[in-house]
């Protein structure tokens, strides 16, 4: 969790640095997408690890009273491990600075379980169970009125989505919701004048909050997502 906090602070710091360094460049024309046109992006995404609960297997102890203290058989701390996946996004440029977009991502994260507190077995990690994970989301991208260079422009983004996680062997489906906020950079390799088709690269860094899905506790989870796309603006 401490690492995640540092990561979020790092992202915010990077955005501040972007804004700060761009301030002197506002005189020049910033690259932009074409208004009322579609932009398609495809690329790879990486999600950070996050805990999904620690549970203790207990027995009732042989003691008087209705609720005797528990006897610990073992404990199991579970995490969804970091994973790389693929992601595609389609956006519609409402104004040169604002686009709405929808995305789909797929990954196969593993649920890792660490066993501890067992009097007969040393603490150890199980191999884990592989999930199939789909996220369908919708959000908005606002291109900041700043220019880092003739080809680069920062943006912020936010949105919400539907999470679908299938357990190993696809025998059980668990669903949930995700919410995200973050930012990134768009780098135009071609175009960017707002008048012609464009092509380039895009990097996103987002903080993602998850509710439900595969989780052993009723809690919201926060984890980082970093994506790199190639985009085509039509």
């Amino acid at each position, binding site marked *: 969790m401490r690492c995640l906090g540092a990561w979020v602070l790092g992202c915010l710091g990077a955005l501040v640095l972007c804004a700060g360094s761009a301030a002197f460049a506002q005189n020049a024309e910033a690259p932009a997408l074409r208004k009322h046109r579609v932009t398609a992006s495809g690329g790879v995404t990486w999600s950070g690890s996050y805990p999904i*609960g620690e*549970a*203790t*297997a*207990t*027995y*009732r*102890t*042989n*003691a*008087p*009273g*209705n*609720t*005797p203290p*528990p*006897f610990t*058989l*073992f404990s*199991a701390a*579970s995490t969804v491990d970091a994973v790389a996946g693929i992601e595609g996004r389609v956006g519609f440029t409402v104004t040169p600075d604002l686009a709405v977009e929808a995305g789909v991502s797929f990954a196969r994260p593993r*649920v890792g*379980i660490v*066993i501890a507190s*067992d009097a*007969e*077995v040393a603490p*150890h990690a*199980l*191999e*884990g*169970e592989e999930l199939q994970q789909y996220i369908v989301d919708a959000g908005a991208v606002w291109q900041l009125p700043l220019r880092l260079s003739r080809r680069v422009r920062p943006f912020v983004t936010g949105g919400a989505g539907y999470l679908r996680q299938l*357990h*190993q*062997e696809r*025998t*059980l489906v668990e669903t949930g919701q995700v919410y995200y906020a973050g930012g990134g950079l768009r780098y135009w390799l071609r175009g960017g004048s707002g008048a012609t088709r464009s092509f380039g690269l895009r990097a996103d860094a987002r903080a993602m909050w998850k509710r439900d899905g*595969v*989780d*052993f*506790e009723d809690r919201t989870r926060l984890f980082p997502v970093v994506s790199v796309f190639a985009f085509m603006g039509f």
Partner: protein
Amino acid sequence: MRPAVAWLLACAVTVGAQSPVSAYLKLGSSINGRITDVSWQQQPIRYFVTERDGPGVTAAELRGAIGRATATWQNASGANVRFEFLGSTSAPPGEVDGRTTLGFLDRPDLDRVLGATSFLIDTTNGAIVEADVFFNTRFTWSVSAQGDAGRVDLESVALHELGHLLGLGHSALGETERTSTGGRRVVASGAVMFPIAMTSGAIADRTLQPDDIAGVADLYPAAGQLDSTGGITGRVTKNGQGLLGAHVVAFNPETGAIVGNFALNMDGEFAIVRLAPGPYVLRVEPLDDADVESYFSTAIDVDFRVTYAPRAVVAPRGGSSSPIEIKVQPK
């Protein structure tokens, strides 16, 4: 056709000693070479209670404790069990009279047995025709709401014996330690159906645990229960060979529920059913908290280390997991 019946003495709950135990959650009867569940095929289960007082408890208090225990089983989620109290009787439990009777009985010879259940079974189909439960007057009993130090809690023992009456065997979810007299003392248990009773004054076993509920839901599933629960199947092996008698414990990290079963054949195959859908951690352990001969009539291998399944296994809704192999190592 007159049913073939057999009188079977089974399933005592004991103090500090082991008693014969049927493997896993259910009692079985061998019919034409096949093990068939022993269960009631007609409900409600009608019963009488003896009108005799017992040490520390009146007949009215006995009826009350049994009534509460029957209500607890009736309220088990996912199960369809109904009892009906027909009245008091002067006939002691244990007589073959066509009446299911629960009550006190003088059994000074059974100095470690708190209570026991016996059955009259139709051996053509495993149907229970009659079942009697006795509570041993050798002990002093209590129905105090908070428990009574030095006295055995009648409701807890009644709940256990009614589990047998329904067709459940003993559970092996528990930890014990040797006593200076050579018996065993319960340290902790994960089921009301664990064969050794808690210490006098303890009342926690008035409440069913997930292992008990899974068992009764398996025997008497409520409508929709089969579609809303799942099972886990697998095989325990040692040096490539099946391991009969290995005890498999399934733990649900989301609910905290623990349900157990044994590998019940020479291939080491096991099945744990009526589980809430979701992933489970599986722990395999030797039967080292009881005398092996109390559970199995054949020798079993207990020379292996506690081992976890390599990954969580998912109990799917309305089905069973694909079999998982759990390999154990010698100690």
